[in-house]
């Protein structure tokens, strides 16, 4: 998809594949209906990982577009997901720290209307630098948005800038959550399931420790690959490693 377009954020997408797979397979797909106000909602606040989102949506038949139109003129599949162009995309993200407040609004709407369903929002650890992330962390507690599940894709892309113990910090704000290996699908599912069944009266979080570029040895934790499109030879090597 990305090679065909000549554009994309491969490592940021690879770090969240398992997270997206579990959320969609176990929490979104069952009787999926975008118009059902009681549905579970997912928002990719780190919108630059759009390739991962489209791949998962396509895999689960929620997206019928040809993935090879990614980033092409007139395509519905932009470099960042568009709420108006793709019916199962719940927010247009791309600028960091917009998806989380929007998720809060959707969560609040459910509560006002008495609707069930949780709002999952996935942010990146770099994105956590942004102010509105912290505003949202506080507001979620103040407004008792207990149907929010925040997942931080902690692929340490920001380890050059800042590194904090987000688990303790979030707990000190009153959120309930834990830190896990973000590439273990069974663990991801069990963790979300336990949080949803045991913690009814707080917003919840998961710090998912991941590897940026997971699955491709020369990309893993290599900042040179953040926004780089592979050459033909590199593409071959990548596909060999991933299969």
């Amino acid at each position: 998809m990305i090679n065909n377009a000549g554009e994309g954020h491969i490592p940021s997408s690879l770090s969240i594949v398992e997270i997206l797979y579990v959320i969609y397979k176990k929490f979104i797909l069952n009787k999926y209906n975008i118009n059902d106000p009681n549905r579970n909602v997912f928002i990719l606040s780190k919108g630059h990982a759009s390739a991962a989102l489209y791949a998962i949506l396509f895999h689960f038949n929620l997206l019928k577009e040809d993935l090879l139109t990614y980033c092409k003129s007139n395509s519905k599949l932009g470099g960042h997901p568009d709420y108006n162009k793709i019916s199962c995309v719940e927010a247009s993200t791309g600028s960091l720290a917009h998806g989380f407040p929007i998720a809060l609004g959707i969560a609040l709407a459910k509560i006002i209307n008495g609707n069930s369903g949780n709002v999952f929002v996935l942010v990146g650890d770099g994105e956590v630098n942004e102010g509105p992330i912290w505003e949202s962390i506080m507001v979620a507690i103040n407004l008792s948005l207990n149907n929010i599940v925040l997942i931080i894709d902690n692929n340490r892309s920001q380890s050059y800038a800042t590194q904090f113990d987000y688990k303790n910090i979030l707990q000190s704000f009153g959120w309930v959550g834990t830190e896990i290996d973000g590439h273990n699908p069974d663990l991801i599912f069990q963790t979300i399931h336990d949080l949803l069944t045991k913690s009814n009266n707080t917003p919840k979080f998961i710090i998912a420790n991941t590897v940026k570029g997971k699955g491709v040895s020369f990309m893993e934790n290599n900042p040179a690959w953040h926004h780089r499109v592979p050459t033909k030879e590199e593409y071959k090597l990548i596909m060999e490693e991933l299969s």
Partner: protein
Amino acid sequence: MRNQFIESSIKIATKDPKLLILAGDIGVFGFRHFRENFPYQYYNIGICEQTIIGIAAGLSSSGFHPTMHSITPFIVERCFEQIKDDFYYQQLGGTIISVGGTFDYSMLGCTHHSYSDIGLFRTLPKAEIFTPCDVNEFAKIYETVYNNERLTYIRLTEHSIEIPYKLKSNIYKGTKLSSGGDISLFVVGPQLKNALSVVELSKKKNINIDLCYFSSLNPIDSKLIRESARKTKRVITLEENLVDTSFGSIVSSVLDEFYDITIHRLGIKDFVRDYGSYTDLLELNELTDKKIVKEIEALLLG
């Protein structure tokens, strides 16, 4: 006008449970009756304007009609990227109602003055912009637009006046308040007070002004502007905003195909680094009836 905002909100909320007021820790006392009567329709999100806009967008996409409220520079300028992305890009409806435009907080200095808000909203071409100066005018606008599924900006003023005329019933149309063949005077917002005085002062000098008042800056009533300008060939625009980006520029654009019409734009020309009263700061910017009359005379001589 803040009191009218509260009254109109109560009137709307009584019949529409989808109106939600999101405030940035402002108007909490004023809205206490609203809060008591409609506890699920008022949210003091706190002093976090970017998040207020994002939350409002999520509420809008879920079928609510959010109204976002705080002080002009903070609910417009500080969080403009959120307005652009979360509302305009996503094509969602919502109403932003600001208080403290121009020099309403005159003594608090630059950070609390605001004359660039209109200009910013003009970078979102389909966003509606209103700057009412009369409380009943505001009420009509708000009660019409709050649920129109478009992004709408309404700027309140602490210096409202009672407009002694009946405005057009269509809030998007301008109203001719006096007819004259010498000069067109187009005005928005509370500068209408000066404009009305200018019409009287000018009559005494035998100058007859075609005075047109506009509630809506976008969409603008181009027809009225062109009709008047073609008649007089000389136009003065008057506002309490930055002329290069606000109403003066809008009028210039509307008239740009007419080579024989002269336009002088009155308003704020540049950053204002001073304190004092609202009147002091208007005087500093030559926005007094006497100065405006001088401009008119100069335009007629020129």
